């Protein structure tokens, strides 16, 4: 149990580190000329990537709430 929650905590840190660093990395590697090449197609790619990241964040929060609820119900029993 303790191991599990500790592993979860590490995962959380890694996940948020990835989440925060991805846009920064993108911003460093992609100058506007790249984003605007191919008729600004990469702007569409960036928008879809942002929505995808948002859905991952949603999954992550719902996972956390469910785990908390499961643990609480287990304690009650």
């Amino acid at each position, binding site marked *: 149990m303790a191991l599990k929650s500790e592993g979860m905590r590490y995962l959380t840190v890694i996940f948020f580190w990835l989440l925060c660093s991805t846009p920064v990395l993108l911003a460093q590697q992609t100058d*506007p000329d790249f*984003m*605007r090449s*191919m*008729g*600004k*197609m990469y*702007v*569409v790619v*960036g*928008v*879809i990537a*942002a*929505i995808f990241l*948002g859905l991952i964040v*949603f999954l992550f929060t*719902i996972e956390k*709430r*469910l785990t908390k*609820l499961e643990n*609480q*119900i287990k304690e*009650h029993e």
Partner: protein
Amino acid sequence: MIQKNWWKGLGVVILIYVFVSGLLVPLKPGITGVSPGSAKTGDVLSVAVEGYNSFFLKGAATQKAWLKLNNEYLLEAQELEVLDDRHLNAVFTIPAFLPVSGKVQDVALILDNAIDGPSVLPSAVFITQDSIQPERGQREWPVVTPPDLHVIRSFAFPFRNILAESIRNTYFHVPLWFAMIFLFLASIVHSIKYLRSGDPRADHRASAFTSGGIFYGLLGVVTGAIWAKNTWGAYWSWDVKQNMTAIALLIYFAYFILRGLFEDPEQRARISAVYNIFAFSLLIPLIYIIPRLTDSLHPGAGGNPALGGEDLDNTMRMVFYPAIIGWTLLGFWMVNLLYRIKDLDFKYLNAKSNR
């Protein structure tokens, strides 16, 4: 199972259609640039034109080019040299005087051939003159006689000069806002339900729909900022549309702060239901009315609704309307998961930790 959850599958199928057609349908041909962009009266001007999705080689036999001034004058290219499908040179002999009483005048470039159909670049070339003699200019410039432009019926999205491929964001950024409104509307319905019945499950739904709406609103802001960086030059331009959506979202954030303030679940549910109705009644003027009353950089703002006229043609409507339905159904699915957790929480742990 299927009888209860068919709408989730429908949402996924619609979104797959939106992604496939929204990304694969090509754009109509357009003009991305000309050089040089300026000329003097009396010049023999040779402009290098860069096309987009164009077939200049295939259409070379019927290729024509014009410079158009103020919808009144139309100067045809005297010589055209097609280099490849995306590049051609057009030579114009510009008359000695402009037909207008100004030193500088912008003219649009129009291309047309049998394969691509017509394409326009507004303000393609700026023509300057030293002495102003509009009467002579009016005699020298050929008056518009509508040319026979080719009408091409193809399944393609329109090419807009500033937007180019990013016009596809109409299926990924814009529907998020429509879906957000539907989620907030559903939230209001459940808030009113709660105020009438006092059923805690209605409160859970209202709160979950509000979270879903805020989630879509934040995604809308982020996707809009990515697009704005590459279109307006900055992630945040303090444009009226951006500012008003930021205020609207802050008002909704306060909904959750308000919920956090009350220990008693009934008091929390009642007050937040009333606040929810208040927040929605502010949302509509903030994002639909105020941006249209003033000037805004945003497409569709500043007086003209985005759904009208040339901003959205019939090809785009075939993807845009399903996109709204698809993203809305996906939002309802996410909210569905949220309030089921809240219901369970309430049932087993009696509302103590249920915010």
